[in-house]
C-alpha cells in the first residue's frame, strides 16, 4: 500500500526535532561533505513524516559548509548562485536513507531479530514511495545536490586476525584490546571498503536493493548521473524520459553525465533508451551526438572502444547536428568526425 507523504503519522515535536538534527548531523552532512554516516536508532515513519522544511542546524558554520557544498554541485548543472534549504520531501528521503542504512546493520540479522530488517525495509519502501518524484526540474536538481554521492556510501569493514582467531567488524571500529600487543599476538588488520550494493546480505538483499533503487529514482538526476552503476541497474522512468523531451532538459542531462565516459553512454544509455520508444531513442542519440562531438573537438579522436558502434556514432552526430553547413569551420570538423567514424568502423 502506497502512503502519501502527508498521510504519514506524525511523532511528538521534541523527538522530531532531535531526530531531524540527528539526520542532519549524521546523514545529510556526511552525504554532502563526506565523512562518517552514523546510523543511530531507527526513525520510523512517524518521525520522518514530521520532518520540517524550516529546520536549520544551530551550528551556522556547519550549516554554511553544508549549503556551500550543495551549491558546488548545483553549479555543475545550472548557473545559479543560490540554493534553498532542503525541502520537506528531501528531509523525508534523508530520513529514509538513514533507516535504509540501519536495516543493513548486521546485528539485526540474529535469530530473534530476523524479521526486523525486512519490516524496516518495508516501512522505508513505503516512505520512499510516498515521497514520489520531484515536481520541477529545479527541485530535481536540488535533490541531486543532496543525493549525488548516495551510491558512494561504503561500509568500512575491518578484519582483525590475531594469534587465536579473527573477527570482522562491519561498520564499527574494532576494540583496542584486540589490537593490543600486535607483534606479540600477531595482530593483522585488514580494512576493506564495502560498497553500498554489497552491504546487504541474505534475505534482505532484494528488498534492500529495491528500496535503494527507489531512493535513487526519487532523485532522477542522480539516477541519470549514476547510470553506469552495476547495482541497482539503471532504468528509464517517465520523469527522465520527460526530461529528455525538452532541449533544456537534455542540456542538464548532458552536464549530469559529464563525469561518465562517452563509451559507457553509448554502451549503456543508448540500448536502454531504444527499449523505451523511438522518439526517446532519438533524444538520447542527440545527447550522445553532442557529447561525442564535444569530445572529438577536444581530443580529435574517437575512443577505440566505440569503433565497433560506427553506425550508432554517425547516426548520433547526424541527429544532434542535422543542418550544419560544410562551409563553416564547425561543419568541416563534423565532416572530419564522420569520415573518421567510417574509416575506423567495422568493415
Amino acid at each position, binding site marked *: *500500500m502506497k*502512503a502519501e507523504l502527508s*498521510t*504519514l*503519522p506524525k*511523532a511528538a515535536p521534541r523527538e522530531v526535532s532531535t531526530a531531524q538534527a540527528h539526520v542532519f548531523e*549524521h546523514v545529510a552532512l*556526511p*552525504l554532502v*561533505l*563526506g*565523512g*562518517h*554516516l*552514523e*546510523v*543511530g*536508532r*531507527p*526513525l*520510523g*515513519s*512517524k*518521525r520522518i*513524516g514530521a520532518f520540517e522544511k524550516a529546520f536549520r542546524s544551530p551550528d551556522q*558554520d556547519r550549516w*554554511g*559548509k553544508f549549503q*556551500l*557544498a550543495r551549491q*558546488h554541485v548545483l553549479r555543475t548543472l545550472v548557473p545559479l548562485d543560490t540554493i534553498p534549504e532542503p525541502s520537506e520531501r528531501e528531509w523525508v528521503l534523508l530520513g529514509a536513507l538513514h*533507516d535504509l*542504512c*540501519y536495516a*543493513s*546493520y*548486521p*546485528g*539485526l540479522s540474529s535469530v*530473534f*531479530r530476523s524479521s*526486523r530488517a525486512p*519490516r*524496516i525495509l*518495508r*516501512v522505508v519502501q*513505503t516512505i520512499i514511495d510516498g515521497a514520489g518524484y520531484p515536481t520541477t526540474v529545479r527541485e530535481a536538481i536540488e535533490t541531486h545536490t543532496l543525493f549525488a*554521492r548516495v551510491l*558512494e*556510501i*561504503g*561500509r*568500512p569493514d575491518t578484519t582483525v586476525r590475531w594469534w587465536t582467531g579473527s573477527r570482522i567488524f*562491519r*561498520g*564499527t*571500529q574494532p576494540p583496542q584490546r584486540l589490537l593490543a600487543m600486535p607483534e606479540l599476538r600477531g595482530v593483522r588488520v585488514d580494512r576493506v*571498503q564495502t560498497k*553500498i550494493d554489497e*552491504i546487504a546480505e541474505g534475505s534482505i538483499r532484494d528488498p534492500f536493493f529495491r528500496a535503494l533503487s527507489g531512493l535513487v529514482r526519487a532523485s532522477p538526476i542522480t539516477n541519470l548521473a549514476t547510470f553506469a552503476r552495476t547495482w541497482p541497474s539503471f532504468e528509464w522512468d517517465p520523469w527522465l524520459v520527460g526530461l529528455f523531451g525538452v532541449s533544456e532538459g537534455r542540456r542538464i542531462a548532458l552536464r549530469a553525465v559529464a563525469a561518465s565516459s562517452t563509451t559507457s553512454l553509448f554502451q549503456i544509455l543508448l540500448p536502454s533508451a531504444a527499449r523505451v520508444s523511438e522518439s526517446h531513442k532519438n533524444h538520447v542519440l542527440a545527447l550522445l551526438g553532442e557529447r561525442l562531438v564535444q569530445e572529438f573537438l577536444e581530443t580529435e579522436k574517437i575512443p577505440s572502444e566505440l569503433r565497433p558502434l560506427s553506425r550508432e556514432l554517425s547516426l548520433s552526430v547526424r541527429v544532434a547536428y542535422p543542418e550544419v553547413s560544410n562551409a563553416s569551420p564547425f561543419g568541416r570538423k563534423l565532416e572530419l568526425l564522420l569520415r573518421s567514424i567510417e574509416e575506423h568502423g567495422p568493415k
Partner: protein
Amino acid sequence: MLDRIAVQQTRIRVPGLGLDHKGVALGQRGVVLFASIERLVSFLSIYTRERSLADLMGGLELYTVRSKLGHSEILLSFLAESSDRMDRMAETARLAGGYTFTGTSRHFVQYRDAFAPFGYDTSNLLPADADWVLYHNHFTQAYGTEKSIDLKSLLLRLEPRVDPSTYETAGPLLIVAEPGVGGALIHYLVRSKVDAEVCVGEWPPESAFDEGPIRRTIFRIPDLPKRMRKLFFSTPGMSCFFPSTAFASVEAGFRHPVELRACPSFNEGHVFFRGKRDPLVLAKMPAMGKVDAFSRVSFRDGTMEATALPKADPEVVRVPLRLAPSGKPWRSVTATWIAPGDYDSLRKLAYALPPRVIRETQIAVTASGLVLRSTAGIEAIPLGTFYIEIHPSLFIPAGYEVVPSVSPEVLFRAIGAPRDIHVFVAHDSTAVGIEEAHFSPLETFLVEAKPLSQLSSEGLERTLSVEPIDLSFESVEVPLLHEADAAEELP
C-alpha cells in the same frame, strides 16, 4: 566660261594670278562677294565662332559695290596669303551664300572648288575699267566701289539677339547704373560687403535739351553673389553686362551676332552693347576705385584735441588680477581640487579607476583639500574643481580666464613664485602654492595598508574536499524486542 586649270599647268592668262606650291591658282588677294549685308553678318558670325579675324585684320576691307545695272552687293577683300586661308574663307563663304574669288588688282577669278581643284583661268578678260571684275563660272561682272564699310561701325550697328542663357554666365559683371541709382548701389554693395570697383563715365548729351553730359556709374563686380543676381538684372536703371573682351561687353540676356572675342576691332575704351538700345561707347574707360572708398563718412561732433601729458616719470599702473568667466572651450584640464567633503566620493571612485589613471595621477594633500594632477588630463576623476594649466606651474579654474589678459609667463613672474612651486589661483583670485616635492603618485597613496591577519582556511578546505562516505554503526541503537518501535510499523 572659265577654264579649269590642269595638273602641272604653268601658264595662266588672268593677270596677277599665279600657282602656289600645291599648284593652286592663287592671287595676292581674296574676295568674297555677298548679296546683302545680312549675308556678310552671317559670314562673320560663322567665321568668328571658330576663328579669329585678327589674321585678316591686316588687309581686311569691306566695300559696298555696285554693278553697272545698279545692283549693290557687299564685297569683302582680304589678303589671300595661302590657299589654306582661301580654302577656309571659301568654305565659310559657301555656307553664308557668298562667292569666293582670287586675284591681285582688278581681275578676280573664281577660287577653286570641287569641280576645279586647282582653280580656274580665263582667256576672256573683260576690257572694263571698273574697280572689281569678277569672273565666275556662271557670270562675269564688273563692280564699282560705292563706299567702304568700317567693321567696327558694322559691329556697333548690329543689334544683339535675345539669349536668356547668358543670365547664367559666371564671371565678372559690369553694371552701368543711371544717375540716381549709382549712389544707392554703392552703399548697397558696401553694406553687403561685396567686392567691387566703381567709376563714373560720361557720355555726350543725347539731345540738345540735355543740360550736360550724362554721367553713369560703372561698376565692375568680380563675383556677384547669386542671391543678388535677380535683383540686379531686374532693377530699372541698372544695366548688367558680361564682358566679351577687355573692351566690349554685352548686356545680360543678349548675345551679339558676331563673336566679339574674335574681332579685334575694339582695342580701346569700352563698348557696352545694350540689347534694345544703342550701345554705349566710352572712348576711354575711367580709372576705377574700390567701392569701399565711396562709403559714407561721418565725423564726431565737436573738436578733438590731442593734449600731451606734462613730462614726468610715469606712475606705475597696478592692475588687480581677476578671474572672469570665459566661454572658450576648456583645454589642458590637468588638475582638480577636491574639498574635504568629497573625500568619501573619491574613496568610492578609487575602486573604479582604471590602472592607467591611477598610475598617471599625482596627489598632494593640503589643509583645504586634495590636489590631483595628471598631465594626460584629469577628466577621468570627475570630482572637485577642475583647473586649467595655463603655464607649467600656473593653474586657474576651468571656465575662467585671467583679466587683464597678460601672457601666462608674465603672470607667473608677476606672482613671483619659485619655479618648483605650482600656483593655483582660486575663484576669489587668491593664489595658493604647492611645492612639486609634495606631489606623490596616487597609486602609492591610495591603498590602505592593513595589518595582515592569518586567514582561516580550514572551513573552505573541508567543504570542497571529497572525503569518502563511511557508513558507521558505532552509535547504532537496537530497540529491545518488547519495545514497539514506530520504525517497524507500517502506516
